């Protein structure tokens, strides 16, 4: 468990024990306003992917902001348990669950919340159907469609429709529709739009084929932060499970110029051993460098050469103002979902002062 010094509410952000995961609530709320306003006017609705921040207090803020389907999306059964326990009553789990023990946990949740899961083969359907029948509940089941990534999913078109037929026939299951995660598409503007449309269209074509085959397709769940507007703009898309939009990170920052970085890692300079090097106290264990290095907002004259387990190595060769010992530095995570999973506490800050300490309850819920 994380062991920060808990500072009193009202403490200036610069005085927090570091490394600290901070969330500027003003910026967070502004990001919500922008994205949720968009979805209020759109036919497709937002289903906030809360596996990104793993924090129930933030999920409730998102659901209250409007423009949503009234529920959230998560990556694992363990995360779903956290959010249902925290009072969320509609959850989509976007990972295929073929294990009996996990199916039983989903059924238990279905007594308290509307649960939707995804499948990509007949064996999944069987496991879920048996569990639902045994528990006396109905589970909503979407067919996971393989598009851009090399992960789970049945092939679009006939294979997906065939599987959907099997779902529709299965006892205890209600066919919900189709789900696909096309991954984070790099680039900007028309390039992202074109690539997104190409993959999402395969899911929409599958929808059309399913309807032709007499299936009632209630939902098509596609897209993410980088292409939420593109996905929502395609007729037939009903839900966009975006998550990063609310906190933002370096990975998506340049793709979403309307949003601002709400989450930061506060670090302290603990060594200035040479004129061209400074060392911070936030390394891979408190930033995460699974997919990229953090940014240093407001300091284009600096860069990070590498993260070691517990240290940030800053390159100061071109520094206009070198760091001094003990100085606080604000870093912006490369991938906020990685960073949130490292912390048990998120420091909510408003106008530069600590407003609340939020529990990152679903941290570590991989199962």
């Amino acid at each position, binding site marked *: 468990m994380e062991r920060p010094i808990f500072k009193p509410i009202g403490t200036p952000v610069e005085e927090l024990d570091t490394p600290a995961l901070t969330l500027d609530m003003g910026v967070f709320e502004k990001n919500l306003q922008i994205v949720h306003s968009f979805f209020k006017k759109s036919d497709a609705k937002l289903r906030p992917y809360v596996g990104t921040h793993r924090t129930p207090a933030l999920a409730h803020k998102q659901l209250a902001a409007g423009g949503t389907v009234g529920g959230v999306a998560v990556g694992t059964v363990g995360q779903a348990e956290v959010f249902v326990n925290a009072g969320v009553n509609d959850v989509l789990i976007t990972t295929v669950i073929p294990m009996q023990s996990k199916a039983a946990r989903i059924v238990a949740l279905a007594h308290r919340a509307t649960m939707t899961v995804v499948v990509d083969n007949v064996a999944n359907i069987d496991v879920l159907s048996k569990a639902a029948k045994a528990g006396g509940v109905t589970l909503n089941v979407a067919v996971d469609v393989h598009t851009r990534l090399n992960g789970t999913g049945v092939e679009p078109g006939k294979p997906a429709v065939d599987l959907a037929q099997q779902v529709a026939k299965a006892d205890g299951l209600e066919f919900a529709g189709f789900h696909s995660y096309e991954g984070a598409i790099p680039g900007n503007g028309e390039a992202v739009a074109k690539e997104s449309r190409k993959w999402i269209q395969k899911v929409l074509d599958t929808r059309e084929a399913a309807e032709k085959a007499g299936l009632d397709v209630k939902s098509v769940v596609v897209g993410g932060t980088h292409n939420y507007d593109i996905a929502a703009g395609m007729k037939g898309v009903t839900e966009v499970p975006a998550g990063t939009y609310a906190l933002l990170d370096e990975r998506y920052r340049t793709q979403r110029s309307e949003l601002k970085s709400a989450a930061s890692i506060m670090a302290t300079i603990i060594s200035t051993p040479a004129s061209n090097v400074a060392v911070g106290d936030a390394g891979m*264990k408190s930033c995460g460098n699974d997919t990229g290095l953090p940014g240093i907002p407001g300091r284009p004259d600096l860069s990070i050469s590498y993260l070691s387990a517990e240290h940030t190595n800053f390159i100061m060769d071109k520094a206009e103002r070198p760091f001094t010992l003990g100085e606080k530095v604000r870093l912006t995570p490369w991938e906020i979902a990685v960073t949130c999973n490292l912390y048990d506490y998120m420091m909510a800050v408003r106008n530069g002062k600590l407003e609340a300490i939020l529990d990152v309850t679903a941290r570590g819920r991989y199962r």
Partner: protein
Amino acid sequence: METYKPNPGTPVADLDTPCLILELDSLEHNFKVIADTYKDTDVKLRAHMKNVKSPMLAKMQMDIGGTVNGVCCAKVAEAEVMVQGGIDDILIPNEIVTKDKIKRVCSLAHKAKIAVCVDNPQNLRDLSAQASASGVTLGVAIEVDTSMGRGGIRSPEEGVELAKLATSLPGIHFKGVMSHQSLKGEGDKETRYIEGRRYIQMCLDVRDAIEKAGIPVEYVSTGETFTYDVATEIPGITDVEGGTYALMSTFLSYMTEFEYAGLMLGTVISTPRPGVAIGDSGMRAVGAMCTYAEAWPVVHSPEGLTVSEMYDEQVVLTSKGAMPLKVGDKYFLRLGQQDVTVNRFDHYIGVRNGAVEAVWDIPARGCFH
């Protein structure tokens, strides 16, 4: 937090996944290699707790042998966990600069022998002031940068200046010198000897300069898993700060005397295309290093599979021929950099002969403060 605590006796095949497995036979083997290596040597292990994050594992190594009967901790919060777990000799091979943290370190010094590292005179004065105010004595070692371009003094002269200052300040007990090394890329026995010796010599040069200035040097704490045996052949080293040896990481795969005791257990959730199996141990659980390709997970069993991609909650396993895994099958991954993975779990599932023997807390998970 991560919450899995299966009952003892549960077969591996029945475990919920992903979970972090400790193969206890392998763990004990690794502890034994260390105990044997340092049995009759002056140099001993000061196991690094950033790797295992558990005072219980620290004590297991101490009981089996080969240690200084103390540990090192990367952070103050980690040291707090170790002191509360009954460990009473701790070196923090890191600079502690904020007022808050210096107070915490001094508080620990009431209960345990605590030493911290310095590379800056002002920091040394701050430590002295708080140690005096708290009525404790802090041990201090000078960090020497040898190969990481990170914290640490860059020359023996700087070392002498700092050592002089340390001996003159109240509340400070000057202990010696400390350095970390890092060997990037593919290593082998010869490279690690040559490079390891070169790095350690840089640290010893600082010690020599300090001794020449008339200041006694009590300890030289240096070396890592990749130099754990090299250090036995270099006189004057007192502690080796090894940590990875206990659970092992794929980036040290050339250290074949150590077994992979830390493993990620996963379950196949889909076999959507020929030659492809998707497992449930994704990047959130396992972790990855974007800047360090050597630290990538490797399939431990079954043999012949490759970890070709990791997504948030999924791993893509591929096979050249027919995929031996089917949906529901279990597989084990070796960890790319084990401490990154341990830092994401709150429990070890201790396994022997294919069944759970014990579940142990990882109390210093997330202790990066």
